[in-house]
């Protein structure tokens, strides 16, 4: 029921447009995987499409080049808006022509992208006792 497709970055937007015209009404999920020191190229974008009329799913996998930039599909699927912002926030991947590419879950001035594999957990010490009081 799930069809997996490997797409190149250059063909990505065209392929999504094709899917949209072929009855895939919904973009249900967009996320990325960081293959740090395991695979080359490092980042992979995973996009899941759902056709409610045909009861079918398509999973598109795009291996990103080193520029970490890919066309935004928000103009085709408005639901991609929040997902692309989340991937930008968590992985630092740039989506070209996105209407409002800002951090969505982390604070705006946050340094780094938390879901990258080289972003260590416990990097920032949290102090519970004797914390300075707020004025």
């Amino acid at each position, binding site marked *: *029921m*799930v069809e997996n497709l490997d797409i190149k970055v250059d063909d990505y937007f065209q392929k999504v447009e094709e899917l949209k015209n072929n009855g895939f*009404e*919904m*973009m*249900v*999920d967009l*996320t990325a*995987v*960081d293959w740090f020191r*395991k695979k080359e190229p490092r980042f992979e974008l*995973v996009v*899941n499409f*759902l056709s*409610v009329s045909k*009861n079918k*799913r398509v*999973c598109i996998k795009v291996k990103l080049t080193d520029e970490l930039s890919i066309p935004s599909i928000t103009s085709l*699927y*408005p*639901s991609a*808006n*929040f*997902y692309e912002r989340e991937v930008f926030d*968590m992985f630092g991947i740039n989506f070209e022509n996105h*209407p*409002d590419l*800002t*951090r*969505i*879950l*982390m*604070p*705006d*001035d946050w340094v780094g992208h*938390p*879901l990258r594999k080289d972003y260590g*957990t416990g990097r*920032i*010490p*949290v*102090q519970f006792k*004797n*914390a*300075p*009081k*707020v*004025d």
Partner: protein
Amino acid sequence: MEENNEILKDVDFWATNSEEGGWNISSTDEGSQKMLEDEDETTTKIQMGSEVIDDYFIQDDISDDERMILNMGPQHPSTHGVLRLQVELEGEVVRRVQPVIGYLHTGMEKTGEELNYFQGPTNTTRMDYLSPFFNELVFSLATESLLELEVPDRASTIRILMTELNRISSHLVALATGGMDIGALSMMIFGFRERELILDFFEKTTGLRMNHNYIRPGGVAADLPDNWQKDVEEILKIIPEKLKDYDEMLLDNPIWQGRLKNVGILTTEECLAYGVTGPSLRASGYAWDLRKMQPYSGIDKYEFDIPVFEEGDVFARWRIKVLEIFESLKIVQQAMENMPKGPYKIQDKKITPPPRKRLDESMEALIHHFKIYTEGFKVPEGQVYTTVESPRGELGCFIVSDGSSKPYRMHVRGPSFCNLQALPVVMSDSPIADAVAAIASLDPVLGDVDR
């Protein structure tokens, strides 16, 4: 006290790295998420919800003096948690909406990479805190699909029983809080009263009222308690009676109908474009339910209907939740009557821990127990995206395994996160009081949004 401050100066942590040693909170102000007076055309369209269908009614006679941008939330009871909305008002009418989220972000996807598959459900169950069983189920189904496991019939049936009861309790909260937002305060008390019945049963079975960690890869954590049928029968008897009260009090009530009909309309086209699933999609006229279309845990064996409404307004979204409770009760009834006998988890001791008493008798049991609780079990390489129909829509879990005992990447597709994008559509061009009703009808759970 001064000595303490001396030490603190050397500590490099984010909240206290200002020069005085105090909390540096000015830098985390709204920043670029701020709604501007004049945005560019695309952003304005998104904020006005006229991206898909341009049904915005522009009133020219309103002066700029009556136009203001203000914040709703994050600490506001009608925003169901910590949702913050920046709204631009023209007099009393909402013109633009910008949802600002992330106040409950706790990095659960990152945490999921640190926990092994056996510990995974403890993490995922905390995401959507009103329907924890669905989160555990989708994680377990994803893991089992990577392991190519079939769980025993009894485990599947217990899963269906618990998730459908959970759907009832979740919808009851949606009805209760939704009623409260609109001003029907007795609905708040009624909804939570009936939910208590179900939570009592959950507590008896799993030991906890929320965040159960009951459904685990390989089956469920424990068998149902003795005389569980009695409790379920009581639920099956009492809830339909109480639902009739709701109908009498609200659905047939002309004030209630006048308040909610033709408010916050979502069309099918908009639902599909914004990825809105679940009751909101079905209330907009599209009969899409993953339980029927892409069944999981053998739910295709049960007889139930999918209620559909054409209107797509707040009233339809309210009614559909009441009707879905009846359908879930049907499934619970069938699951109770046809509960198969047998093991409640798979007997592969590499994946599910052996019973406690076996540890005193068998060396192998001790080894398996030790391995599972220290290292966990290894899952073959692969990627999988599984879905279940949660009370809010399509709940998906995307797991990438690299062959170790921890997921390499764990991503949860929360339905609330996606449904929130439709907020500008339902809220804009309506009075602020209707906007509150529209938020309540979409039923967002912020734990699921921010993860």
